[in-house]
């Protein structure tokens, strides 16, 4: 497998731009949202304190988050720090499919954080993948908290988490918006 598949690099043509637009309302709103995000991100550029919240994960996402502090990835070199108390946290990494029994604790954790704050939904469960919404759980974190950044993966690797955190503070450009994941050329021999 090549490092990155050339054929999936989409261009900023109508299709993908249109894909990006369709989801988030009028242009003005989008511009205001970006402005606000830039302002928040600029405040956290050099030092960001992260608090994690497990709303029902299977423990694999937790292990990947713990590995961010391991020597191989060492998020301290990027000015990112873990902090136990939400009172001192700027960013909340939420894993798990938002189990309903956890709503009060999640709401309290979010409200204990001072503004401005960023919420990062981490892992396929938190993004609404693995589990549907039913009596046990909401199915995705955006049902209970206002999410700013989504990091897919089951579990997302520490590198994906790092990229997610840096995108959250606007120090890395977001890549996924431009990718179409639709290859048009014949990349594999078609069995007749």
């Amino acid at each position, binding site marked *: 497998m090549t490092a990155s598949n050339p054929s999936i690099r989409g261009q900023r043509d109508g299709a993908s731009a249109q894909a990006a637009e369709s989801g988030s309302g009028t242009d003005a709103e989008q511009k205001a949202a970006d402005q606000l995000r830039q302002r928040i991100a600029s405040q956290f550029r050099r030092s960001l304190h992260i608090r994690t919240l497990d709303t029902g994960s299977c423990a694999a996402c937790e292990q990947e988050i713990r590995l961010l502090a391991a020597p191989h990835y060492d998020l301290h070199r990027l000015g990112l720090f873990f902090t136990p*108390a*939400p009172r001192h946290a700027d960013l909340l990494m939420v894993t798990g499919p938002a189990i309903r029994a956890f709503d*009060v604790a*999640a709401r*309290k*954790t979010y*409200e204990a954080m*001072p*503004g401005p704050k960023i919420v990062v939904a981490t892992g396929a469960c938190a993004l609404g993948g693995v589990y549907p919404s039913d009596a046990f759980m909401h199915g995705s974190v955006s049902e209970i908290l206002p999410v700013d950044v989504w990091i897919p993966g089951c579990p997302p690797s520490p590198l994906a988490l790092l990229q997610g955190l840096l995108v959250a503070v606007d120090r890395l450009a977001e890549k996924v918006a431009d990718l179409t994941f639709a290859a048009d050329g014949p990349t594999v021999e078609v069995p007749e």
Partner: protein
Amino acid sequence: MNALTWFYLAAAGWGLAAATVLAGRGAQLAIRVACALSGLAGAAALAGGASALWWGDSRVITAGGSVVVGTLQLQATSLGGIFAALLGLVAVAIAAFAPRYHQAGPGTGIYLGVFNLALAACLAVLAAANVVTFLVAWESVALLCYLLILRNPGRPEAAAGAFWFLALSEAGFVLVVAAFVILAAKTHTMQLDLIAARAHLVPAGWRDAAYLLALTGFGFKAGLVPLHVWLPEAHPVAPADGSAFLSGLVVKLGAYGIALFAFRLLPVGPAWVGLLTMAAGAVTAAIGILYAMNERDLKRFLAYSTIENTGIIVTAFGAAMIFGAYRQRALWAFLLLAGLYHVANHGTYKTLLFLEAGVVEHATGTRDMDRLGGLIHRLPRSAVITLVGTLGIATLPPLNGFVSEWLIFQGLFQGFRTGSHLIGILIVVAAAALGLTGGLAIYAFVRGFGIPFLGMPRTRQAREAAEHGQPVAGPALLAVSCAALAVGAPLVILALSRAVGTVTGVALRPVLLPGNLTVIPAHTDFSAFSPTYLAVFLVAVTVVPVLIYLAGRPRADSVTASVWDGGMVTFKPRMQYSAMTFSAPTRVTFDALYRPSVSLHRASDDPAGRSGPVHYETEVTPVFERYLYRPVIRAVEWLADLVRPIQSGDVNLYLFYVFAMIILAYLLGAL
């Protein structure tokens, strides 16, 4: 108006108050009038005490008395002055407290009558000029206090507590009588100032024996450690103002007795007597606070704290006697002054705390700390006043406890001036014991204030306590006097130095107050501090930054969020420290003394390994009651059984006894 006339006024006031309330049979109006009179009389006593303090000893007045009993002589001495002033202050405070605390009724009438008579009796003890007056007054104080403690006989432990008090008081009284008899016999006079004058005639052995008898006798009343057992038994059952009076004043009479013998009647004795006194004081302080740490009942906790402070006072007197023995006259007088200052301080904030404990019990119906909690929201005024008292007794800077404790420590730290290394080291060891006591006192009073007043209410009574109708004036007056004793420390030290000057003949004033507001401990090259500047500075340090913050407050919109609790749904009252768990570290460190016993019931002990209700109880074994007093009591009972056959009811046998006694007396006479 010299001091004695003030004392007459006070005695008359109290007598009148007793009469009105007894005549009125405890009607509400009678109570209010009596308390007003009692307050006025208190003020008179305060004035008398202050003038006795300032102008020195007055002349000895013979106020009558009969041939049988002996002459009744009174004299306003300066040593007694500080105690009389404290008596006045306590009387005024209780007078302001009593009307709103007691319900009208015949029981209250009798109680207040007895209370006022007890005040007069205490004044008589302080103003006694000869042995007979002193002993008569002393015994009447004991009996009247016994009646005070028996205020509500219905309570289960009331009788037992009162009896503990009376029994130990009588034991002490016997020893005090022995001490006075020795002195009077050797100096052939009954008048105290004559005894003091001729004290050098008393041979050394008799003098020390008299002092030791006095120390033990007054120790019973003051609460030196092996003799302290009645305090935690009597205080909880007495009503609020009764126990305040007991702890604030009656216990101080014990200290007055020891000071009387050590500094006025007897000349400066050998060093070992001082060492013994200091040792008794240090041990009392340490063991007193250690037991206070693990008490759940508010009043027993305060009673043990009284024992601790008595220990501190007696340590100061002991150290003074040692310095006296080594001819360090400045330090001898200085430590007496420090001890007296601590007597005044402890009298004020301990009375305050007992009155507040009464208010808490009145508002919630219980004294058990584990059933209180969060009272600061329900009883705000009482909480603030109790906080002032707690800061005082925990000897924290802005308030008066710190000043007297600082003076005592400065005196103790100058042990090296005695010249003998052993004595120097022993004095510093006593200072270390007081240090340990000071630290544990702060720990104990954080618990004593924190558990009942802060946190969440643990029971329904604590939730529904109401401040309205609770007495506040009395304790407020004492709180103000605590602050005054701290800020006005140089003035107090000035007055005390004059009193100590008349008692010891050492002019301390220039030695203590070089500037007008700084205090130095008897020797310029040692240390200095100014309580006034300290109090003002501390207040400024807290108030000024708040003002700056309020003035320049950033206008950012602030969000109030709940305390971070790990996302748990609700905080329950069971999730906060309880009295015994807060003091658990001491139970582990000093388990040799406490020998704690634990009883534990856990649902998870059930072989089915389930989790559920947990019940954990821990008790501290009362070492002295169990291993010292119970054997003595059993021995006495055994003796009583032994002797019972004598009383066989047969008249001839009784006649034979009389006959045998006459023969015996005759033979003894012949020797």
